[in-house]
């Protein structure tokens, strides 16, 4: 059942025994995770299970209290420049007056001075990033006029404009209707030909059909490069939401664990 038998490919993200949290509250415990070149990993987990914290740790926005994080062999704060980060759509940034083109052009900003004008290369990269997500006809539109799925595509284009090695997606289909969800996952499959993808979501249904390998995050992380949920995942799985379990495997093996949803050890 191994989704990616090539273990010789390059290691992109490497988390070793990572613990992290806020003040006295430990959100991530003992998380060890590796993302290799070519991977398309979906991590599922309940709200409050540490999905966002895991993303912040990988992006160097939260320092782990223990353990080590490497991105492209570098500390997270340096290696994150290789990550195309696609945040969850916030509906409250709807009012911001900005065009699709200007959002995607943010992907071309570099640290230091010298961002006064877009170079020819920048403009080409922006145009390509828009084409890749099928948003090229929307370049001059205001972001406020777009649907949830279209906005998501713009954010993906912005990430692609950074010419990333890795796409890191936080709940990519949270504000997207079912039809657009299918289209977005089709897009991911296509992008995965060149870019490794790590996506984190509580939406099990979409993930299971598209990703190459799947894992479960609920304070602890269970991931063994497998396509389906394994018995070991189920060991922490009863802490994951039941709809996740019910969709993930054919039988309702965990019905009796209903009461333990959200239980934290």
């Amino acid at each position, binding site marked *: 059942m191994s989704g990616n038998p090539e273990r010789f490919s390059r290691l992109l993200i490497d988390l070793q025994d990572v613990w992290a949290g806020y003040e006295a509250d430990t959100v991530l415990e003992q998380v060890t995770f590796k993302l290799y070149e070519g991977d398309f990993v979906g991590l599922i987990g309940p709200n409050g299970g540490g999905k966002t914290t895991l993303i912040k740790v990988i*992006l160097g926005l939260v320092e782990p209290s223990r353990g080590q994080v490497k991105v492209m062999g570098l500390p997270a704060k340096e290696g994150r*420049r290789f990550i195309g980060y696609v945040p969850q759509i916030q509906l409250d940034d709807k009012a911001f007056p900005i065009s699709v083109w200007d959002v995607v052009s943010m992907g071309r900003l570099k640290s230091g001075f010298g961002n006064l004008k877009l170079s020819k290369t920048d403009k080409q990269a922006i145009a390509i990033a828009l084409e890749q997500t099928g948003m090229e006809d929307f370049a001059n539109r205001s972001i406020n006029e777009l649907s949830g799925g279209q906005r998501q595509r713009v954010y993906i284009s912005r990430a692609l404009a950074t010419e990333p090695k890795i796409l890191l997606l936080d709940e990519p289909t949270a504000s997207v209707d079912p039809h657009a969800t299918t289209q977005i996952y089709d897009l991911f499959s296509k992008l995965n030909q060149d870019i490794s993808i790590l996506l984190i979501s509580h939406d099990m249904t979409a993930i299971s059909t598209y990703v190459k390998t799947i894992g479960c995050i609920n304070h602890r992380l269970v991931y063994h490069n497998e396509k389906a949920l394994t018995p070991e995942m189920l060991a922490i799985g009863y802490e994951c939401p039941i709809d996740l379990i019910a969709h993930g495997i054919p039988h309702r093996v965990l019905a009796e664990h209903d009461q333990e949803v959200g239980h934290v050890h």
Partner: protein
Amino acid sequence: MFTDWLTYDFMRNALMASLLVSVACGVIGTLVVLNRIVFISGGIAHAAYGGVGIAYHLGFDPMIGAIGFSVLSALGMGLAHRRQGQRSDTVIGVMWAIGMAIGIISLSLSPGYKADLMSYLFGSILAVSVVDLWLMALIVVMVMAFVALFYRKLLSLSFDETFSTVRNLAVTPLYLAMITLIGLTVVISMRVVGLIMVIALLTIPPAIANLFLKNMGKIMAAASAIAVVSSILGLMISYLLNLPSGAVIILLLGVFYLLAAMASAVKHQPAR
């Protein structure tokens, strides 16, 4: 009748001050509105009164005290906001009130006639000196240079701070520079409309522009133009009707905002 007022020196200074402050407010106010830190700019304006009071008490130019207090409180409030997000509103409210309290106490401890200090509360554009004008010009140049140099980064920071951080765009220095310029703009705006009404001069012009425009640079330009028109028109009306100029300017802006909001609502009404 409409030109004779320009024969007075103080009216020419007032006109120049209106122009300079309006331009700074249009540009900086757009950043304030888009970054949703209107509350911070109100806090800076009121905290600055502490500096006015202390400077007056110690016998030097109140403007120097205002600059010191507004920049320090801007940095303090800005850092609190970055650390705690929405929860920082309490800290900002406390600094707002403490600044006012320091100002009031220092002034009550100072002997003599203090009527001109009311001008810091309600504005006194007719008392603008040539030194004030140079200070305003300097701050306008700083604001323009900052926005011209960092426009794209400011746009990215305002739109999505996390993404900007992940791209290693020196978010914190940029934010602190922005908040310092907000503090300086608040100080020069105090001369025109007073610290109580600074918030309006900063936020109403960009709010009007934002109803019709969907580009930060265009909003900055339009907001500056709206502020220039309102302040000069307000100045003329206040001269003709002998009313306080700061309040007239703000009231005009309020009327413009209502008209613009109605026009925008009509424009965006779905076709039947």
